């Protein structure tokens, strides 16, 4: 697990997962998109409590390595202010076959999104900003009053 204030370089990350035994590589990237919940997004700020994000992220990766017969897995999360199109998070997994590469990659990003102490604040085109609600709650259909400040 790695947290960085610099641009994530997926191709360099990928190269670190190479392995002569590996026949499959699955990766996921989260990109900053220009809209969310019907609002036009201008940029996005990630706040991360690094000591615990690293610890919990490492735990997630180790869980993936235990659960699935994969060779290598890694996750990098960006912090600070990001622009539309930037890569906020990258996950990569190499394994002998593709089933487990896909499954482990999916497992890692799912867990990272709900377990790591990471928060994002959206800055909207209309000048407002707001902290983004947790994804798990959104999935479960919970009502989260959105905290918006101008």
């Amino acid at each position, binding site marked *: 697990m790695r947290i960085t204030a610099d641009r994530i370089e997926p191709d360099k990350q990928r190269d670190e997962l190479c392995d002569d035994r590996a026949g499959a590589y699955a990766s996921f990237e989260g990109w900053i998109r220009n809209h969310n919940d019907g609002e036009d997004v201008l940029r996005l700020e990630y*706040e991360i*409590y690094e000591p*615990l994000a690293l610890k919990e992220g490492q735990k997630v990766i180790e869980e993936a390595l235990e659960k699935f017969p994969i060779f290598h897995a890694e996750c990098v*999360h960006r912090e600070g202010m990001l622009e539309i199109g930037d890569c906020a998070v990258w996950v990569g997994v190499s394994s002998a076959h593709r089933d487990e590469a896909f499954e482990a990659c999916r497992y890692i990003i799912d867990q990272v*999104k709900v377990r790591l102490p990471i*928060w*994002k604040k959206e800055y909207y085109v209309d000048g407002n900003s707001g*902290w983004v609600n947790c994804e798990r709650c959104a999935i479960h259909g919970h009502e989260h009053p959105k905290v918006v400040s101008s």
Partner: protein
Amino acid sequence: MNKKLTILYFASFREHAGTGEESVELDVGTAADLFEQLKHRHGSAEPLGHCKVAINDEMADWDAALSDGDVVLLFPPVAGG
């Protein structure tokens, strides 16, 4: 009995508290008690279950007992990725 605690606020909690860190002396048993007592500070409309807590840099359960000198981190709902 009062306990001396250091509270760290993150993201929306920090903005509401107007500070990222404060020291308190409170008579609280568990992390959940603390969360309730500090509601006016972090201004959370979130149910406890959507938030997380860490004690001395370890993720903890809300029913974890607090000790004098603990550093308690209050996390609003996370949204990584």
